[in-house]
């Protein structure tokens, strides 16, 4: 039981690192970036290439995945995304789905369609046995890294000058502009950082779940759920939503009701239903603040 909670926590933490960039950019620029998962996939493949082809350790791959995907994110933001901000949500959706398709086919071309998986570093193999609970070392690592990142993010947002500007811009970008805050630059930086985090998460996750060209589509739905439930006005919301989703997903698979003589896994069903209900009754998210008008 505790092991399940622990697994769910690790899964949820990872989901948060993967999704937080999307949540912030959505809140900041009201921009729907369905290609966010492609950045996560890119990070995953960076890890795969570095570890499988060049034999480097995961510890090197993680920062590399962050830097590379952040760079790609910055480049795309400046060249392509910037033209999309004044377009409708529909156009943004189509554009980013288009980008996702391109990314998937490109990865397929260079890396092949089969799922890739990387080895956990030797130091992190195996489990800690704590009485009845056995905790996987790599998952502990994942939780620790993600927790550190979350704390760093939270501090960065609340304590730094950039953070306060970012918060102001998320609250009301028009007013922020009026106050002389360079929202465009803040957005570019945030976008790059968010993409980098997704890449980092992808690399971190590549040792738990496999990475394949279908990854962006598979995870897009999870990202959207995180945002739907967590809202976009804070990072605490998506954080709690990710943990909730991680635990619910894992628990939903562990506790399977028996329907018609078969154990039937209804985790997905429950999660999607919760998402729809939250969206209907609390469109700003379960943990989001109600934004006046």
């Amino acid at each position, binding site marked *: 039981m505790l092991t399940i909670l622990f697994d769910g926590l690790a899964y949820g933490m990872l989901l948060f690192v993967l999704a937080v960039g999307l949540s912030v950019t959505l809140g900041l620029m009201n921009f729907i970036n369905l290609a966010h998962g492609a950045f996560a996939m890119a990070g995953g493949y960076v890890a795969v290439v570095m570890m499988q082809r060049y034999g480097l350790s995961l510890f090197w791959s993680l920062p590399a995945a962050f830097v590379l995907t952040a760079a790609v994110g910055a480049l795309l933001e400046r060249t392509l995304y910037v033209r999309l901000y004044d*377009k409708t*949500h529909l156009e943004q959706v189509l*554009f980013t789905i288009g980008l996702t398709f391109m990314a998937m086919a490109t990865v397929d071309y260079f890396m092949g369609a089969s799922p890739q998986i990387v080895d956990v570093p030797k130091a992190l193999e195996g489990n800690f046995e704590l009485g009845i609970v056995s905790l996987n070392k790599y998952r502990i690592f994942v939780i620790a890294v993600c927790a550190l990142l979350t704390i760093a993010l939270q501090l960065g947002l609340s304590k730094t000058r950039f953070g306060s500007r970012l918060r102001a811009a998320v609250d009301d970008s028009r007013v922020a502009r009026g106050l002389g805050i360079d929202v465009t630059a803040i957005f570019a930086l945030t976008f790059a950082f968010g993409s980098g985090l997704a890449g980092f998460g992808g690399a971190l996750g590549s040792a738990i779940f496999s990475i394949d060209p279908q990854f962006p589509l598979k995870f897009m739905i999870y990202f959207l759920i995180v945002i739907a439930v967590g809202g976009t006005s804070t990072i605490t919301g998506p954080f709690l939503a990710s943990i909730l989703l991680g635990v619910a997903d894992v628990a939903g698979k562990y506790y399977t009701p028996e*329907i018609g003589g078969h154990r039937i896994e209804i985790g997905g069903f429950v999660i999607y239903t919760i998402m729809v209900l939250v969206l*209907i009754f609390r469109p700003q998210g379960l943990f989001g603040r109600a934004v006046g008008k």
Partner: protein
Amino acid sequence: MTDATATDSRSGTDRAMIYFAERARWRGPEVALWIGAFALAFLFPSRALLFNEVAILALFALSLDLVLGYAGIVSLGHGAFFGLGAYAAGLLAKAGAGAAPLSDPTLGLLFAALVCAAVGYVTSFLVLRGSDLTRLMVTLGVALIFQEIANRMAWLTGGADGLQGVAPANILGMFEFDLYGRNAYLYSLTVLMVLFVFARKIVHSPFGISLRAIKGNSLRAGAIGIPVNRRLNGAYTLGAAYAGVAGALLAQTTAFVSLDVLDFHRSADVMLIVVFGGVGTLYGAVVGAAAFKAMYDVLAAATPQYWEFWLGLVLVLLVLFVRGGVMGLLGAFYARLQRVGGRP
């Protein structure tokens, strides 16, 4: 009021009457398009199966255009109704075991339309409020739930293995679904045309105009007495029924239903088609579906493994450079032709 203004007003009314009639008039290219579509069955009999898919896709896209292009509801889960319609028609045909009355294709269409309309009506309440993003996720969520249900109800739907034994009877009791697919195409095309004409009638009706008004400005629409929610309920229900018929056509003409009918890619593809063709134009759905399938056919033949890349590129370029999709381009071209023609 003086007599003079009364006379003016009358001539103004005449002008206005002509104006309204002109807006809804059938134009030459439209008629040509439909005649051409039927002629295709005889000109290229070897491609009838592909044409059949185009016709079904066009109807599916048409259903989304009603929801997205007219009522302004952004849906990333419209495939839910397509799939529901496919299963409804498929199960009915299966129950009839290939014999009328239950396996009658027309009855199957009606049944699928009714089921989808009912479910569409109920779910329409979920998309009344909220931003584009909320609607997008709600529709996506509903579609995912549908897929989960179909997957879990394997005893009814066949689960991941697909629904076996779908055996529609002959069309109108006369025409068999032949191996060449020509009857299937003519059947699907006829259904598409009938429903298209009906949709065209609707968009030029007070109801249709009020939908566009809601899409344009729902605040003002409410202020002039348009019951916004009820109209959206209606439009979504109608779109659901149309999508259901499209799904039913697929189930009947392929005699098979797989879980794939509920897959996310159906919803994404159809949205892409509508935007590619031109939102809120009706014909955009037809043109978009044809262009999409043609593109797929050419690209998949050239680079079977990586055609997705080119599809993505087309999407990206479309959003960046083309407003209003293919119909927008055609409209601009047509307008230029007229200007050039009218200049001397």
